[in-house]
């Protein structure tokens, strides 16, 4: 057992890997080289189209124990992960490792594939029903590994996560293997998340429901990377691709938090021409982004860029000239997809560009302000987005670490009171993102500033904002609820939480009992 820089107890080995403990948000320095990529040579006039997923599995030589990967740009509407895993099951494959960029509720059938031994390991993300299943005692052959968007890209480039076959759902593709998520029958926005898979995987299979004449474009996935193209009837349900969460909140508490967030941005010193920000897709973040746009308009400020997931709110700001560009890795609604198609200032990017620790530049490092959510924060400003207070692993990391580490001012927005379970705690159940990269926590009962940011504290106080100690906010909220019981964790590790540099920031252990 070792203690990492946050004092979290981590085993020396997790499954088959030796652990490098987290040493600080920017502690790791560059050493060595990236992993080599497999060599591929095309035959002239090759047609890569295969009649079915089974045919592709066979052609790739996928066998027991191998690793396959997926992207999540169809979100709740995805059909492809289930299609591929069902085909693997029918073909009698066992012991597969899956590397999705994220999972959703729609991927619940994976639970059955774990029980039947088709899937035995997961790296990347383990949200929703699969996380719940593992938390409740479902067994994987090795603990899961959770990585941020940037961390996943880095791990593939580093050769830490080797992929045998990348299955890439594509709203449109040509028979030579160029693929995109922007046009097509069921557009989902950029499919750049798997650009790194396509380059590093031994084999790459594009799965589409819209085979178009050569060339399709933009080419998020390129012909030079693609081995096979499979056409299926359905890859996603358009109604669920754009998430239902894309509604401005109407909760008075969340609106209050959103307003306070924007007041803090205004007072922060970053709010001037050239200002840049990242807003998320939750109702609260959407409201904050909307209010921010209103304030920029009032103050006649022109921002340099807004970072997505792209939404109508960001697109409207771009059209009104309030920001010069949108940098987008994902598109959350049809307005954002249309804008990507039509507006050169709406720039598509991949996680390697926006979030990769092992690179000479991340777009997140150019952010002035970001507002992110959390399930828990603690008095050291550590943030948990993975587990709930009962120890269940229910969410992936997404871009949380990458954005928090990058933005000059990272704000966590969360209510101080959320039913009977307190979000502000003495010690988070799991550390996803360390307090050293969190600057401000905004609640409906005031905002708390990280002691490292005395400068922000002074500015907020000068602007008359309700700056408070996090411990006082916690006390205010706790008076309304009996203490909750806390889980007692056993030794068994069910998942490792990697920091974006590949070190282990925390582990999720199985709950053994209750205090």
């Amino acid at each position, binding site marked *: 057992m070792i203690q990492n820089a946050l004092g979290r107890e981590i085993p020396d080995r997790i499954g088959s890997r030796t652990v490098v403990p987290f040493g600080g948000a920017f502690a790791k320095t560059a050493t060595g080289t990236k992993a080599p990529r497999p060599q591929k040579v095309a035959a002239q006039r090759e047609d890569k189209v295969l009649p079915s997923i089974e045919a592709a599995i066979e052609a790739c030589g996928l066998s027991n124990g191998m690793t396959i990967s997926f992207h999540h740009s169809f979100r709740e509407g995805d059909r492809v992960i289930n299609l591929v895993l069902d085909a693997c099951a029918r073909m009698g494959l066992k012991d597969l490792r899956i590397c999705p960029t994220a999972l959703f509720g729609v991927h619940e059938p994976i639970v059955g594939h774990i029980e039947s031994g088709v899937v035995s390991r997961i790296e990347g993300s383990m949200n929703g029903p699969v996380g719940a299943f593992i938390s409740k005692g479902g067994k994987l052959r090795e603990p899961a590994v959770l990585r941020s968007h940037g961390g996943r890209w880095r791990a593939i480039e580093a050769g830490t996560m080797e992929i045998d076959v990348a299955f890439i759902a594509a709203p449109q593709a040509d028979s030579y293997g160029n693929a995109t998520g922007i046009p097509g029958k069921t557009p989902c926005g950029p499919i750049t998340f798997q650009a790194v898979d396509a380059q590093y995987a031994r084999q790459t299979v594009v799965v589409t429901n819209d085979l178009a004449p050569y060339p399709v474009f933009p080419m998020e996935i390129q012909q030079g990377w693609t081995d096979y193209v499979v056409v299926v009837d359905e890859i996603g349900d358009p109604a669920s691709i754009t998430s239902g969460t894309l509604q401005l909140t109407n909760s*008075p508490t969340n609106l*209050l938090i959103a307003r306070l967030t924007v007041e803090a941005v205004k007072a922060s010193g970053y709010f001037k021409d050239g200002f840049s920000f990242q807003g998320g897709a939750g109702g609260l973040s959407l409201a904050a982004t909307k209010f921010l746009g209103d304030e920029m308009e009032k103050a006649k400020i022109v921002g340099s860029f807004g970072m997505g997931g792209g939404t109508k709110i960001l697109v409207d700001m771009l059209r009104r000239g309030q920001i010069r560009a949108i940098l987008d890795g994902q598109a959350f609604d049809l307005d954002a997809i249309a804008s990507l198609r039509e507006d050169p200032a709406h720039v598509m990017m991949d996680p390697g560009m926006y979030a990769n620790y092992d690179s000479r530049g991340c777009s997140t490092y150019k952010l002035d302000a970001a507002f992110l959510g959390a399930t828990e924060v603690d008095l050291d400003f550590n943030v948990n987005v993975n587990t709930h207070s*009962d120890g269940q692993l229910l969410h992936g990391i997404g871009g949380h670490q990458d954005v928090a580490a990058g933005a000059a001012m990272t704000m966590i927005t969360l209510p101080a009171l959320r039913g*009977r379970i307190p979000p502000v705690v003495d010690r988070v159940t799991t550390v996803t993102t360390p307090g050293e990269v969190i600057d401000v926590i905004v609640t409906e*009962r005031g905002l708390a500033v990280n002691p490292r940011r005395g400068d922000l504290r002074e500015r907020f106080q000068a602007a008359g904002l309700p700056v408070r100690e996090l411990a006082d906010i916690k006390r205010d909220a706790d008076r309304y609820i*009996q203490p*909750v*019981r806390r889980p007692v964790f056993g030794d068994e590790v069910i998942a490792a939480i990697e920091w974006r540099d590949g070190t282990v920031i925390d582990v999720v252990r199985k709950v053994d009992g*209750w205090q």
Partner: protein
Amino acid sequence: MEARVGAEAKGDCLVVARQAERASVTVATKNRNLLETGIRTVAEAVLEALGTPGVAIEVQDQGALDYVLAARVEAAVRMVLPEAKLIRTERVERATSAADRPRRSRLYAPGNNPRLLVGIDIHGADCVLLDLEDSVPLGDKAAARVLVRRLLAAVPFPDEVWVRINPLDAGGREDLAEVLEGRPHGVCLPKAESGEGVRDLAKELGEIERRLGIDVGSTHIMPIIETARGVLRCEDVAEADERVAVVAFGAEDYTRDVGARRTGEALLFARSRVVAAAKAAGVQASDTVYADLANDAGLAEECARARDLGFDGKGAINPRQIPILHRAFSPSEDELAQARTIVDAAREAESRGLGAVAVGGRMVDQPVLERARRLIKYAETLVKGGTA
């Protein structure tokens, strides 16, 4: 005999109480491991305070805070055991409030809806109004009373908190007996139509205050004028008792009562009368609510008109309306600067033994000077109270 109180709705809980041989508590919650113990602790404390009567309690929790849970359990037990008395609980300290403190906003919250009540204290309203009247269905009145009392006891409001009761002869007396335990700053009397009605309320308040050891006379009254009869007799209402601190106007009931459409013109007579009556009695006037939540511009416009008429504040049906109300009913920087110039000029004239003062070529007479002083004092109160 069985009683069901609350609902399976977010922030609330459904409590079912039945007479039984022995007291018992069963808890259903989505998060049994984390929450069951805490919920049980709260429910058992309520039963214990009632002498552990033979009542079986089932709690179906949906994230209710302790005071909501306790209120639901208490209300349910008291329904199956009518002889059970209300439970005295610890309560937060609450200082009495000055009759003339600023009340730019009075924010309504439905008294039996935890989802909208929880956090009602944090939106910066000058005056929060917990409603037991129109927003509470008849069958929920008893449960709402207990919930409002427990909320008052648990939540330290930064500014004022009031309760709107039912008419005295339709549940209002029961409302008062219960909620005064929670020490609201004031009580709002709906459909006020006569001085006598106000005096009846004042008398009742006095008796309860004496019984509970509250400073007699410290609980304010806000009559709401919302009927034709009320409008015609609002002088009597405003002058009826020292406790009256503010007279409010309610347009919804008034338009229904007189058969008017809700236009500015239709309401002008009533509004003007209410303002004149309030000011003649030396108290504040507060305008009706604005129901179109999506229309911020319309609200700002109506606030400006109300302020022109002499109103000091306005009702709000949602916290998002509060900043607009506060902007409208606070002195602007220009107004304040003008007032300071007038007061300074008057002081200077006085020190030089001059009787008449002119500012910007206009004579400043006594009423103008008085108004300038009042404005400055009011602005200072807003800053001191942290409500600016």
